[in-house]
């Protein structure tokens, strides 16, 4: 089992084209850990902003009466992919993993596969 920082570092190194990663608590909008990012990508801003994205989707599903859960959310930009994966295991409810990927270098299918694997090994 990997702790937060190890898991994020693994995401950063094993996922091709990864620009930054964060583990975010969407009950508060604060990041439990971040790697990468920098001046072009402020991960605390991303954590707060994507919390609103996740909350909006959760609320929409409630209003639609969908008895289901979000596995992941993909946002495609001109030059990047942003991938949000909600954590499912007991003890990590209310958290999501956030990845920013360089669109030219990333393999989306591989990134989702790796992220699933990292989630399985993550211990918060």
């Amino acid at each position, binding site marked *: 089992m990997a702790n937060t920082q190890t898991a994020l570092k693994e995401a950063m190194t094993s996922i091709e084209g990864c620009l930054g990663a964060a583990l*975010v608590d969407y009950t*508060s*909008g*604060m*990041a439990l850990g971040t790697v990468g990012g920098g001046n072009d990508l402020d991960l*605390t*801003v991303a*954590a*707060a*902003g994507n*919390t*609103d994205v996740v*909350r909006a989707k959760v609320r929409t599903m409630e209003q639609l009466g969908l008895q289901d859960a979000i596995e992941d959310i993909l946002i495609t930009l001109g030059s990047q992919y942003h991938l949000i994966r909600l954590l499912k295991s007991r003890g990590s409810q209310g958290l999501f993993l956030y990845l920013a990927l360089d669109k030219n270098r990333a393999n989306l299918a591989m990134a989702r596969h790796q992220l699933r694997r990292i989630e399985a090994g993550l211990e918060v």
Partner: protein
Amino acid sequence: MRLTLRQRTERKWLPAAEPEVLEELRRLRARVPHVTGALAATSDGLVLAHDTAALEPEGVAALTAAALGVAQSLAEAAGRGAFRELLVRGEDGYVASYAAGSMAVLTVLAGDRANVGRLHLEARRSGTRLADLVADALGRAEQP
């Protein structure tokens, strides 16, 4: 930069800056969902401007000044430098205070569904802007 919160009882607040301060508080409320009130006060507890519907601003400003004193001592005793911010979480929501320069403080009330990450980002920016407004107003007052 090291900031110290000074007691400024001898200097009266200038009403000239109040509309701008109020405007900044309204902007903060509009930008962060679940924020139910915002208040700017001097570090010794005088209300500069407030945008709170339900609460008594004078009481909150006075309590903010008291909490500020304790928070400042605690930060100093723990070797964490000058006061920056204070977050209190109650069962039904949050009360947060942010330094706005050395003479003023911004206190924000938010519901329990508030996005604290966003609140921090926006309120820190507002604190910086309020510090500038207060400094400008004091600068103008010192001109003969």
